[in-house]
């Protein structure tokens, strides 16, 4: 069933519970699209929006979901991943819901998708101009690690007062000779705002820089939208003498497809306790495994 057929079906079948196309009412979509435009205009700036309660848990990707639902149309093809996997709980419940409220085609193939909603990963295959990547964000405020109050962090962003977070990184290096932040590593966007890239691994951080596709970030519970427009400068925070380092998978390869230049999941064998590695991006791995 295509999106258009879905709309016809809904209109003809008065017995079933009627939802608007893509669930959200048109006024809500309009508001979210406006906020997206503002976010695109000010890369890395967190735009407040009146987040709606969605029928999936607050904190389970409702921000990303609202973005996806307000930009998606009948001609789109959607891919949803969680931890790189198309088949994980969160991805499945989101896909199931979206299918129910607009039945647009769903794919596992990164190349075929026009909108990709993701939790914690950027696909291995390079994204193109006609694709939009929507990130689910649990905590949009990167400065939260040094300051709990929104009122204060808002002012810090306004004044570009970022000394505290630099100091945090510096102190980490002094204590541990390592920066303790694993996923969700702070990035400087367009030389202006320090931004939380959502809990993607450091491995994915370089993909944010000069991305060919539009990157949208939605935090439903915290009611914030932000964006990185295509070809924007995005750099991880680093010192001249202590440079940014991604996760180290040297000498490790995927046990299924043998890939070595990808983000790997560590799998602990039940019986022997030995470790093996597998691609976190499952659809990429499958593609490689096909003859």
């Amino acid at each position, binding site marked *: 069933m295509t999106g258009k057929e879905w709309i016809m079906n809904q209109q003809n079948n008065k017995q079933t519970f009627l939802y608007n196309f893509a669930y959200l009412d048109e006024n809500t979509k309009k508001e979210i699209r406006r906020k997206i435009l503002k976010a695109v205009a000010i890369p890395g700036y967190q735009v407040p929006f009146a987040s709606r309660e969605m*029928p999936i848990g*607050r*904190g389970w990707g409702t921000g990303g979901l609202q973005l996806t639902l307000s930009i998606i149309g009948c001609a789109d093809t959607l891919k949803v991943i969680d*931890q790189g996997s198309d088949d994980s709980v969160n991805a*499945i419940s989101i896909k199931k819901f979206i299918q129910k409220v607009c039945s647009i085609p769903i794919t596992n193939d990164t190349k075929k998708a026009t909108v990709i909603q993701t939790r914690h990963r950027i696909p291995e295959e390079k994204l193109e101009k006609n694709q939009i990547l929507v990130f689910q964000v*649990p905590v949009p405020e990167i400065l939260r690690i040094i300051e709990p109050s929104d009122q204060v962090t808002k002012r810090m962003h306004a004044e570009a007062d970022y000394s505290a977070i630099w100091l945090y990184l510096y102190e980490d290096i002094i204590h541990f*000779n390592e920066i303790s932040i694993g*996923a969700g590593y702070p990035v400087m966007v367009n030389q202006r705002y320090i931004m939380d890239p959502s809990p993607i691994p450091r491995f994915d951080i370089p993909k944010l820089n000069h991305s060919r596709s539009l990157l949208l970030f939605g935090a439903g519970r915290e009611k914030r939208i932000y964006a990185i427009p295509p070809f924007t400068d995005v750099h991880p925070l680093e010192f001249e003498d202590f440079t940014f380092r991604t996760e180290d998978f040297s000498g490790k390869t995927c046990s299924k497809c043998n890939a070595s230049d990808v983000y790997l999941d560590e799998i602990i064998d039940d019986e022997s306790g030995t470790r093996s590695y597998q691609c976190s991006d*499952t659809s990429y791995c499958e593609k490689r495994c096909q003859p």
Partner: protein
Amino acid sequence: MAYVAVKGGQKAIQNSINFMEYNRKKGNSPPLETEQVKEQLFLLIDRIMSEGSLYAPDLAAVAIKQTCGDVLEASFVLRAYRATKSRVGYSIAHKTDKMRVIRRISASFKDVPGGQVLGASLDYTLRLLDYTLVKEENVNREAILDRLFPDLNKADPYPDSFPKIVELLKKENLIEIQPVDSIQKEEPFDITRESIHFPASRSAVLQTMARGETGGMLLLAYSNMRGFGMVHPVIGELRVGYLPVEIAHPYEKSIYRVGEIKVTEAEVISANFSSDTNSIPRFSLGYGLCFGHNETKAISMAVLDRAMQTSQPKAASEDQEFVLNHIDGIESVGFCNHYKLPHYVSFQSALDRVRFAQEEKIKEIKK
């Protein structure tokens, strides 16, 4: 247990959903009627409507049945339904003195104009398990009335409305008066249409608390009452009753009554003097109002309202941002439970960091 990257996850998830439905239906008792939930578990209905922020007893009953009695989940179902409804307009703001009261008490005076009306309450019951409820006979309403209230026909006629205790104190200049006019003139801040920012306007504060989670609000209010705060509450007046809902016709502007809602209202007098040293010493007021009969929530709300009026918060319950950002049940529950989702990409990333830091430390010790 792999709920994840392995193929077949989809089927396992559907089975989990089906299993839950089976568990609800597998017993020998007849299916729960939503009418029964509505009529016999009305306090639960009231709480769900209040936290779900939608006044709809029938839908609340369905939500309770559907979620097998999980209060937070039921409120969530109702709230999500509410979010799909577009905003038609706002009802007209009213004073509450015309409330059709079913219970009203004041702790500040022994006798109050209009009298103390205890109404229906669990307050005065002994918390002894009532074994007779295990097997309850099905008797008709009249018989119950006759047994419980034999003197019903001798009762005094019931007044339409009651004077507000706090108004009497205001008249005597004993209570600080909020600039009410400015509140009524401005359009209320709608927290469902705009993201709340701090310092929040009074309408945003009261709306957020009105849909807050009872337990969370009680915890913060209790911390204040116990000593992590300055409010020494005296209940000026606590009311339960029905308020008319009226809207103005969009064109001809005439006012129509569209229904009524049951609410609980608490006005808490803080017995410490107002902090403004330039004015004469007076008591100050905290205000609480929520859907349904939920006195704990209304009182907690009033205490928090008063607590947050300080300009220099010293305790958690006095900090507007702290209180308002953490009392929403739908948000806190969602975030708490999202930790059950797989996090192995970020955990892998953290593992890499900690292993590296360990190696560095070991190198340092060996030196």
